[in-house]
């Protein structure tokens, strides 16, 4: 449905997206993950024909974003980071206007407007001036305008940013409910969101794709080996470390910070990495207790998606990738100049 090949987008002074390629199949929900300024918005803007690519090729529903821009736009519903709303308009007037813009036949417009209002649960505010709506409702109106022409592809730029947890949950449910009919790309920096609503994850950092995989595969990656944080009091750190290393299934033990506990005893923390397919926690607990020490904490730090993400983006930063730093700075500026940079 969406195919991106060697896409590069260069601004005056820096490269926002470097030679990225990915594909999205029909009906997939893809989470576009990355830190602020990683190149998510730029990629989406290229796909929606707002920005032309510097080089490379992108097609949506078989149409090229440069050559057949109008066709692409007909097949895409787009929710920019800031919903593109006219605060002085009523919700229904606004949706009617967008419907006309998207080329819906006049006779069908009232029906479509009623349908999307129903779908996004904004029937109650249909005749309210947009400027008076809460942020959550504005976001829904934003989604409503994106789906009004029933596009096969939906591109949502941080659809839940700035919403409170309740609104975020609602927005996520709404997006999930759209998944059957549309191919969706949504960008976010909230990982749980990707876990909940997406089938595939593309992690992008400094304009390059670091991971492009299914959510299930990423989960497997995290289950494969276990990492546990162990905190022990009442013993010297080296002794504890030695003891932990002897436990079956432990691959390596890394000392973390030691501190003095409430009663003056030494508390030391360790990160224990298990071998693949081993569950080391019960054994660790037993070992510590048998040695007569106090086990004050035992918790899986195991690679959550969050950690995979941080690890991936961090390691990329360390690598001497051209103008990485400069990139961050400039994109930060882009954010500030949002919604439209000049």
């Amino acid at each position, binding site marked *: 449905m969406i195919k991106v090949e060697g896409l590069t987008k260069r601004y005056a002074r820096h490269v926002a997206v470097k030679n990225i390629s990915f594909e999205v199949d029909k009906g997939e929900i893809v989470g576009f993950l990355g830190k602020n300024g990683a190149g998510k918005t730029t990629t989406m803007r290229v796909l929606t024909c707002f920005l032309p690519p510097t080089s490379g090729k992108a097609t949506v529903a078989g149409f090229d974003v440069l050559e057949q821009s109008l066709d692409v736009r007909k097949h895409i519903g*787009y929710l920019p980071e800031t919903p593109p709303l006219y605060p002085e308009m009523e919700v229904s007037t606004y949706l009617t206007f967008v419907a006309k813009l998207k080329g819906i036949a006049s006779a069908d417009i009232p029906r479509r407007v009623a349908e999307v209002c129903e779908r996004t649960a904004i029937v109650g505010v249909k005749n309210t001036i947009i400027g008076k709506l809460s942020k959550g409702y504005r976001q829904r109106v934003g989604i409503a305008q994106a789906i009004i022409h029933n596009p096969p592809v939906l591109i949502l730029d941080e659809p839940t940013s700035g919403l409170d947890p309740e609104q975020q949950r609602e927005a996520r449910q709404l997006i999930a409910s759209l998944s059957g009919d549309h191919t969706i790309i949504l960008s976010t920096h909230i990982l749980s969101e990707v876990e909940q609503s997406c089938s595939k994850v593309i992690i992008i950092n400094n304009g390059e794709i670091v991971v492009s995989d299914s959510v299930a595969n990423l989960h497997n990656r995290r289950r494969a080996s276990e990492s546990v944080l162990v905190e022990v009091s009442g013993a010297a750190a080296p002794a504890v470390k030695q003891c932990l290393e002897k436990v079956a299934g432990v691959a390596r033990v890394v000392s973390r910070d030691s501190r003095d506990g409430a009663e003056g005893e030494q508390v030391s923390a360790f990160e224990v990495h298990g071998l693949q397919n081993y569950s080391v926690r019960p054994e660790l607990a037993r070992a510590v207790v048998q040695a007569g020490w106090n086990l004050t904490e035992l918790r899986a730090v195991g690679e959550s998606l969050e950690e995979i993400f941080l690890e991936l983006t961090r390691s990329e930063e360390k690598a001497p990738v051209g103008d990485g730093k400069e990139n961050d700075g400039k994109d930060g500026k882009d954010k500030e100049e949002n919604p*439209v940079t000049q």
Partner: protein
Amino acid sequence: MRNIFTICGKELKSYFTSSIAYLLMALFGLIFGFFFYSATAYFVQAGLQQQLQGQQQPMSINDYVIAPLLGNASVVGLFLIPLISMRLFAEEKRTGTIELLMTSPIRDWEIILGKWLGAMTMYLCILAVSAVDVGLLFAWGQPDWRPILTGYLGLILQGGTVLAIGTFISTLTKNQIIAGAATFSVCLLLWVLSWVSSYNDAPWAAAVAYCSILTHFEPFSKGIIDTKDVVFYLSAIFLGLFLTSQSLESMRWRA
């Protein structure tokens, strides 16, 4: 075509839902009304004096009232039109709605033409306020309607030119005030360019003076439609809108 009307209608609606339409119409009505009152009062006074002096030839209401009135209206237009055009693109850029327009299946020139036509219609609504005053002339006098018609045609062409320039300037910033002030300055400059010809008769001075939007208006207020003036205005409108489209295009590339 439909897209142009969609954009045009949206612009018009936003002029009228915000109070700017009524404000501009009221301001213009007030200013034009004052000019009208001054011109007619002077006309009546002068006419009375002429009759007392025994002159038979009646004064022409067209020469003494309508021509100066239309001239004044064209100057008032220079002040009011930047207020119409300043928000066209600046506002969309500020709120981010430009992203909606530019990712919808609609061509850039349709957006531009729609917006310009919306602003034009707004300007026509403002001009229409002056019809009340002109109507009074017809009720109590016998003015020649032809110079009035050409005068209004001139006002429309001149307004279209200033609006096209204003539309272009509005794409350059997201600050309405900057767009308005810049448009006003450019228009003021275009107005006073004609002064050059009064102290310099070199060919370049003539060329500069030719670019003045006001010199091209004067024949219209006297009832003359000169092709060169019409061509001047039409090409200026085209240039303004063309620059607008170039500016939008470059916005995509630079963004």
